[in-house]
């Protein structure tokens, strides 16, 4: 196998695109207008909301996902009682931007929740997400009551054959997953798939029976995210998943958007500096055919915003 460096790759891709465009203007047109059917959009060098604006545009805008009158659930990571400067939770500006876009696309209701690890009242408040969602026109829901969860079956899963999922997820029309990229003591990294542990009730089962396999099994849940947005504006580099102090966080200014969690997680792992196959649940999920972890085979749109 020959090695391509980035320049060669871009050059080659540009030449190919130019060639195609030259010969077939019909095929090139969407490419130029930025409407290509991308598997993954990677944005860098902007604020969380700003990067989301340009990223979602590449995926056809929020109206490609949310239709008028639909019920939307946005599931950020709000697990820990930490302020935004310690990036244990999703950036509140990003969550607000997602909620606002859903409302503008005509969503009847936008519900935001997480099955938190710390007291939900504290995490919703200190993360800034509670206030951000309210001002953006969404509604916070709680995830810490067992009665909110219904049992579902995952026939294609290897271990997690049955679990209890939050009714908001099971009853919604559109499910948007908004994790944050962070270090994780148990799962190595916490990404899009790992964020789904916040929609199930019994998480001790995951730890007891095999964490990586159970996380990968969530790709076969009856309800999967229609869109995932990985917040990597701030990355938690160490002491994950909750972080100890601001020094654990790194301002990286990235964001990844796409429909397939495995591809997104693979790209996010690379942003963190890990190979995707090093991360147990990404490796297992891709083996099980839940998605493509080989980023060579993923159509990626890369956007660098002007500083």
């Amino acid at each position, binding site marked *: 196998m020959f090695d391509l460096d*980035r320049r060669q790759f871009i050059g080659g891709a540009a030449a190919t695109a130019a060639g195609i465009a030259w010969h077939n203007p019909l095929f090139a047109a969407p490419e130029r207008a930025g409407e290509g059917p991308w598997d993954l959009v*990677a944005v*860098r060098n902007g604020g969380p909301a700003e990067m989301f604006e340009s990223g979602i545009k590449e995926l056809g805008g929020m109206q490609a996902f949310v239709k008028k009158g639909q019920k939307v659930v946005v599931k950020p990571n709000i697990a820990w*009682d930490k302020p935004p*400067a310690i990036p244990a939770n999703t950036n509140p500006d990003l969550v607000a931007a997602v909620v606002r876009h859903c409302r503008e696309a005509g969503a009847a209701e936008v519900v935001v929740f997480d099955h938190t*690890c*710390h*007291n939900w*009242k*504290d995490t919703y408040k*200190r993360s800034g997400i509670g206030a951000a969602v309210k001002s953006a026109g969404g509604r916070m829901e*709680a995830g*810490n*009551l067992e*009665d*909110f969860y219904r049992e579902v079956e995952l026939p294609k899963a290897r271990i997690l054959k049955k679990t209890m999922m939050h009714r908001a997820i099971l009853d919604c029309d559109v499910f948007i997953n908004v994790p944050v990229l962070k270090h*994780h*003591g*148990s*799962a190595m990294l916490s990404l899009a798939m790992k964020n789904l542990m916040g929609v199930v009730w019994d*998480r*001790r*089962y995951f*730890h*007891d*029976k*095999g*964490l*990586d*396999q159970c996380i990968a099994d969530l790709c076969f849940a009856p309800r999967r995210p229609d869109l995932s947005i990985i917040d990597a504006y*701030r*990355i938690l*580099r160490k*002491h*994950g*998943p*909750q972080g*100890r*102090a*601001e*020094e654990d*966080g*790194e*301002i*990286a*200014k990235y964001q990844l958007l796409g429909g397939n969690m495995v591809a997104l997680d*693979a*790209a996010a792992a*690379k*942003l963190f*500096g890990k190979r995707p196959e090093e991360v*147990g649940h990404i490796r297992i999920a891709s083996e099980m055919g839940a998605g493509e972890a080989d*980023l060579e085979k993923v159509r*990626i749109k*890369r956007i*660098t915003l002007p500083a």
Partner: protein
Amino acid sequence: MSVRSYRRLRIAVGAVVLLACTVVFADVRDWFEAPAARWLLWPQFGPSVLGFLTDPGWVAAGFLVVLGMTLLLGRVYCAMLCPLGVLMDFSAWLGRRTGARRRLSYRRGRTWLRVAVVAAAVVAVAGGSAWAAGLLEPFSLFGRIVSGTLRPLAGWANNAAALAGWTMPVEVSPVPWTVLGLALGMLGLVVVLALIRGRLWCNTLCPVGAVLGAVSKFSIYRLQIDGSECTACSMCERVCPAQCIDFRNHRIEHSRCVMCLDCVRSCRRSGITLERAVASASGRPRGRLLSAGVGGEYPGGGPGARATVLPSVTRRLLLRGALLLPAAALAGKGDGNRRRRGWGGGRGQGGGGRGRRKGSHSGTCDRDLDQFSKRPSLPPGAISLEHFRSHCTACHLCVSNCPEQVLRPSVTKWGLAGFLQPYQDFDHAFCAYECADCSQVCPTGAIQPLTVDERKGVQTGVAEFFKGRCVVKTQGTACGACAEHCPTAAIQMVPWQNGLTIPEVDPDLCVGCGGCEFICPVTPQKAIVVHGHREHTAARRPLLGRENTVREIKEEFPF
């Protein structure tokens, strides 16, 4: 002030006290933030005395105001500030409204019982088991009743509403059966007694009633029956809930009078008045002789006129005693401060955990310690088991106000010496790192007030890891739930076999919050257990950077 407006005031203040105390103890939705709840309960006599003994200051000086009021007017506290007393009046009123018309009559007081109750309370506190004093102390008893019955009910109702989408759900710690039974039993006893015998409780079993009763014997203003006005209709005796009016002899037993003034209202001829009893010092007749009339119509009094200088001497002695009390408390304060400095002054004085610490490092299952056999944890701020047991009256205000609902009343966890006193139950929750509410709310000083920042420097217990039980070893799968929940990174996942990582505890950093034990998926014996300290020690707090690092961009997109 006219009798009518006093009565209105009594009912209004009583209603506010009853409602506020009920809401504070049944507050599942955190309507009252911790300091607000604490201030609301400032004039509560029992907790205030204990609080003053540990840390004298105006924060705990509510009981001095109550003593002052009692010296001036009698048992005004019992009339309107005591939640249990107001509850009794309310029950009796409801009983009368629903037809159970019951006439009361004069009964003799049971002084020996009252003295015994106070003596028992003092012995209990001095002997290091304050719960026994709190068992009958009206504020603590009221708190336990509401916290044990109404609070779980409110939580259940709230969560039923939450399921329908009307509100957000709340966590409510389960109430042990013993505590529920005791609360219901005491509530039944108090209400039934109130229905049939008015304020009998207050003048027999209540230690606060006994103390204030003794003080009110010397109060400046007292109710007196004017024999010249009395038509012997017996109305006053019939309505008196304390059964302390002997209308035949025109006598009121002031130590039992709870200052409801129902007698004054019942008298059609204004024969009962609130008079300045000091007048007796100038040689005018008083007490029993009031029957001969106090208005000067029958000068000279009746037979058996007593020398009246005596009470005033006693009053002076009593006042001096009241002044001595704070002095005694100040003497105790130095001790408390010494203890508190210990928290900040590095670890090492609480040698109790030394041997254990080694064990947790080696990580071998050298002892069969588990979540059932370990010592439970005291709330942060409790200083030591001895301090906690000798100051906690088990009012359960911290149990009601714990945002995590990790505090639960004990039954046998602290032994008989600590019956009903709260402990941290890591089966259902764990202690929040960013919270010190229990310490802010405790009215007796059993849990000394801490700021959130101070709380982070206190080690209430220490985590011990048992590798032999850990799923990483027994099942060969990745876990690390304990390390995830550790707020101080005292638990780190260190490389082990086959690319797996396994927990390792740094006991110096551990605050004993119990997050690890709570989340550990191993059953029945947890692989990580927080063993409570008998005496709290200091947790090491490393200096941490308060700035994010900034990424150096080598390549714009690494994929």
